[in-house]
């Protein structure tokens, strides 16, 4: 009963010093591990900026493979607010009934297909499909476009050989350039067209700004969503009683979604660059060096969560920060939550049990820490 578990590798460092460290392409990172400290640093955007050199706040750093600034993610206040206010309503569309109906149809189809098969490799033949098809709704573009994205494989930046693959990254960047040109030639009601027609303080967004929003939308919601889905399937394979519980008590679906997201913390951490010499829990941080806000560690903080390493589907108070905290909290959270909500509801309705057949874990190496973030592959059988 522990193949689907995600152990907490940060506990010792979190309780002893509150900080961890790792190297990343000769730009080392001091990792902030406690929930309250992470929140404080996330809140303090003046001392810990996002608007550094594009790619630098991402870990592993993307400075060598990306020049375009992701928007609003790599912009600090006050400019951040103009972008965020412009884009936010679009990313709240998953709250609309019609959007949810379409998402439900996508998820039902994928589960029906999985039930009809003997076995399914979930990562590549379930989660990637679901994530890609759902993304057509978020972008408001034809469903068929998801086939292109599925064809890219699971990782936009990561290949078998390397965590940072410039060729792979360029597939995405060139694709977005192309789609922007198409939207200029033939404007529609898709996100590209909407952005191209938008203004902030009377100034139209440039192509480069639109590209920055689109890269964020594609990259931010790919591995994270795929891992959330895959890890949930693995969890339910070992906990059929939880599926039954959800089926009989759909009112716990919301707390269940939040709890799974807390436990999996699909984005391990996000970096910031210090703008001045400063301190984080008695550790000196030098100007122009990096810290990370380690969401995954914070979400297991025993000072905040009772039984932090257990999945408690009806956890009522759950102040997790899996979607970040403060100014830069996750723009795609509404979409991600809807996916998880409908996934859980539909699984509970259609699936009675899941047999775990074979799997290979995806372990991140972060200095001395090794963290399971998901699976490279996982084969299961879905039973009606």
């Amino acid at each position, binding site marked *: 009963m522990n193949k689907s578990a995600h152990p907490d590798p940060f506990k010792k460092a979190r309780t002893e010093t509150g900080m961890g460290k790792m190297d990343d392409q000769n730009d080392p990172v001091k990792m902030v591990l406690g929930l*309250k400290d992470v*929140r*404080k640093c996330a*809140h303090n955007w003046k001392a810990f900026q996002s608007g550094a050199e594009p790619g630098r706040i991402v870990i592993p750093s993307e400075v060598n493979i990306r020049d375009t600034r992701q928007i609003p993610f790599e912009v600090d206040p006050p400019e951040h607010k103009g972008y965020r206010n412009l884009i936010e309503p679009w990313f709240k569309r998953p709250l609309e009934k019609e959007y949810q109906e379409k998402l439900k149809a996508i998820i039902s189809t994928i589960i029906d297909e999985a039930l009809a098969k003997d076995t399914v490799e979930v990562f590549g033949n379930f989660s990637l499909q679901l994530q890609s098809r759902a993304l057509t709704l978020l972008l408001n573009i034809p469903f068929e476009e998801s086939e292109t994205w599925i064809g890219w494989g699971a990782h936009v930046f990561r290949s078998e050989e390397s965590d940072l693959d410039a060729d792979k990254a360029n597939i995405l960047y060139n694709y977005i350039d192309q789609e922007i040109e198409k939207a200029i030639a033939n404007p529609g009601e898709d996100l590209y067209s909407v952005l191209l027609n938008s203004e902030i303080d009377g100034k139209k967004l440039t192509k480069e700004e639109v590209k920055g929003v689109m890269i964020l939308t594609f990259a931010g919601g790919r591995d994270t969503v795929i891992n959330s889905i895959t890890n949930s399937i693995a969890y339910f394979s070992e906990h059929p009683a939880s599926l039954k519980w959800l089926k009989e008590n759909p009112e716990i679906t*919301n*707390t269940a*979604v*939040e709890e799974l997201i807390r436990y999996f913390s699909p984005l391990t951490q996000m970096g910031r660059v210090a703008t001045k010499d400063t301190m984080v829990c008695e550790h000196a941080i030098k100007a122009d060096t990096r810290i990370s806000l380690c969401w995954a560690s914070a979400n297991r903080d025993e000072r*905040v969560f009772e039984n932090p390493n257990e999945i408690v589907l009806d*956890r*009522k*108070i*759950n*102040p*997790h*920060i899996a*979607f970040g*905290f*403060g*100014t830069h*909290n996750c723009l795609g*959270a*509404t979409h991600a*939550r809807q996916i998880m909500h409908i996934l859980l509801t539909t699984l509970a309705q259609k699936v009675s049990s899941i047999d775990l057949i074979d799997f290979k874990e995806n372990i991140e190496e972060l200095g001395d820490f090794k963290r399971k973030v998901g699976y490279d592959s996982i084969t299961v059988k879905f039973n009606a």
Partner: protein
Amino acid sequence: MAKITFITTEKEEITLEASTGSVMQLAVDNNVPGIDGDCGGVCSCATCHVHVAPEHTAKTGEASEIETDMLELDDNANEYSRLCCQLEISEALDGLVLQVAESD
């Protein structure tokens, strides 16, 4: 039944009635502007921030430590701040007036 009045940041007064559930859910179900309740009420997102009318703090009681910790980092928080997902509707809340907080 409890009658609860929300005063929005645009100074609009919205009075709603309910007997169960959280105040956040009541506000979200009735589209009260400024109350989003993104996390569905587990005290994670802080998008249901309200200021309790000073004369009504006895009705709502005090915030828990977890809630206080969340609010501590909100620039618009003051001594009357609550996350209204943590306010359970009951007769005790009848007549409550809540000012929807500004967001950053």
